[in-house]
């Protein structure tokens, strides 16, 4: 099995003395769906930002992260960013162009897709996420579910092999969540989903990693992790309702 992501003993500290990551090591195989859970401040978002090289700034020292074997260092920046598609928490930060078309086209254009091909590419991606003919729309007038999908279209347009999602269901209404889940299931990429939404993790991810205070404190099959009430409570989490009434091992 190909290793998609390898993280070796990653440390990271923000400038204000806050140690966000303290020795994180993680290996993710191609095609896996991994849920990343933990209390606020655990370092989940920080970890995701390391996957495509946005952090640390300056890339000093030996690389601790490898994407398909390629070290995440500045010189590999463009390549890494093609392979890793990152969905940010707030769609308003991610959709930064004045029209949907320009935003979805942004990635491909930056990566060198010729302009004449971009138009069709954008149309295809928007159809994929269920937003046909949205090209000329202004992002501000979209619902949060639609914004989410524009973000996804924008990321997918770059054809990443790994999808890293930061709180994808935040702010979505139940319909939006349903649509997102359906869509996520249809995408074959390796997925890492950082979220508080444990129902989502239970439904989408076969493997779950628990983080707390910048460290990985548990890593294993989702059902096992989420059913471990003591573990969950110890790290500011709770066993999700979806599991409260099911006993996978009977009894």
């Amino acid at each position, binding site marked *: 099995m190909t290793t998609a992501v390898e993280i070796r003993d990653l440390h990271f500290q923000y400038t204000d003395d806050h140690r966000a990551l303290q020795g994180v090591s993680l290996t993710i195989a191609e095609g896996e769906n991994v849920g990343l859970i933990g209390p606020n401040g655990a370092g989940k978002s920080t970890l995701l930002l390391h996957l495509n090289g946005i952090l640390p700034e300056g890339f000093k020292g030996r690389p601790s992260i490898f994407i398909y074997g390629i070290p995440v260092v500045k010189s590999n920046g463009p390549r890494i*960013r093609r392979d890793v598609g990152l969905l*940010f928490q707030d769609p308003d*930060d991610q959709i930064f*162009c*004045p*029209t949907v078309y320009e935003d979805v086209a*942004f990635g491909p254009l*930056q990566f060198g897709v010729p302009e004449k091909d971009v138009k069709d590419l954008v149309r295809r991606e928007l159809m994929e996420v269920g937003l046909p003919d949205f090209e000329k729309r202004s*992002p501000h007038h979209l619902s949060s579910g639609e914004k989410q999908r524009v973000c996804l279209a924008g990321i997918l347009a770059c054809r990443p092999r790994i999808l890293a999602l930061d709180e994808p269901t935040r702010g979505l209404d139940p319909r939006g969540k349903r649509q997102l889940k359906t869509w996520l299931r249809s995408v074959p990429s390796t997925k890492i989903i950082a979220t508080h939404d444990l129902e989502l993790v239970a439904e989408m991810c076969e493997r779950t990693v628990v983080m707390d205070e910048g460290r990985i404190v548990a890593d294993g099959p989702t059902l096992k992790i989420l059913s471990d009430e003591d573990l969950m409570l110890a790290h500011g989490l709770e066993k999700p309702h979806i599991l409260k009434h099911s006993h996978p091992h009977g009894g």
Partner: protein
Amino acid sequence: MRHDFLDRYSRIESPIHRLPAALKMGIALGAVLIVVLPPITALYPFLVTAGVLLVVIAVSRIPVGFMVRRILIFEPFIVVVAGLALLQPGGALKFGTIVVKSTLSLLTIVVLSNTTPFTELLNVFRRLHAPPVFLTMMALMCRYVFVLVDELQRMKRARLSRTFDHKKKKARSWRSLSMMIGQLFLRSTERAERIFAAMSARGWKS
């Protein structure tokens, strides 16, 4: 605040709206030039421009009332400053000239901005090789003006919910308005950081 207060009618359907942005921009600039440069005594440029504008407005389906309101915002300023010209020998002619010229130019640009989405104007600027920094800044500005307006709205409502003293003292309201502006700046800088991360994530080469 209305989210489309900037160019409300720029996306409606009409033969004028369908014309290419570069053409509209070129014609608008040409119109401004022929209105501003010749002396008022050469009547034709003004009459022709006014005529063309009226036809364009009619065909473009932009409501006349809207047009009038947009012009009225600036007319007082025009009249007052042009009024300075009155205090000169021969000032009346000058006054009239200025008012006609600036009103026609104003109308031209209002028509342009309401028949062409600003993003298309940005495209024209791009093709004219405007500095990329400017283009990115203008696109970001158009994108985030509404977001900031919403944030300001939320701050105002939050403040109102905690205000029980309705004898609004001017000094205090200046202070609290300034604090909101300060807050808005802070949020804007923080958002700019996140946007930078999002742009980098999608391969932005500055």
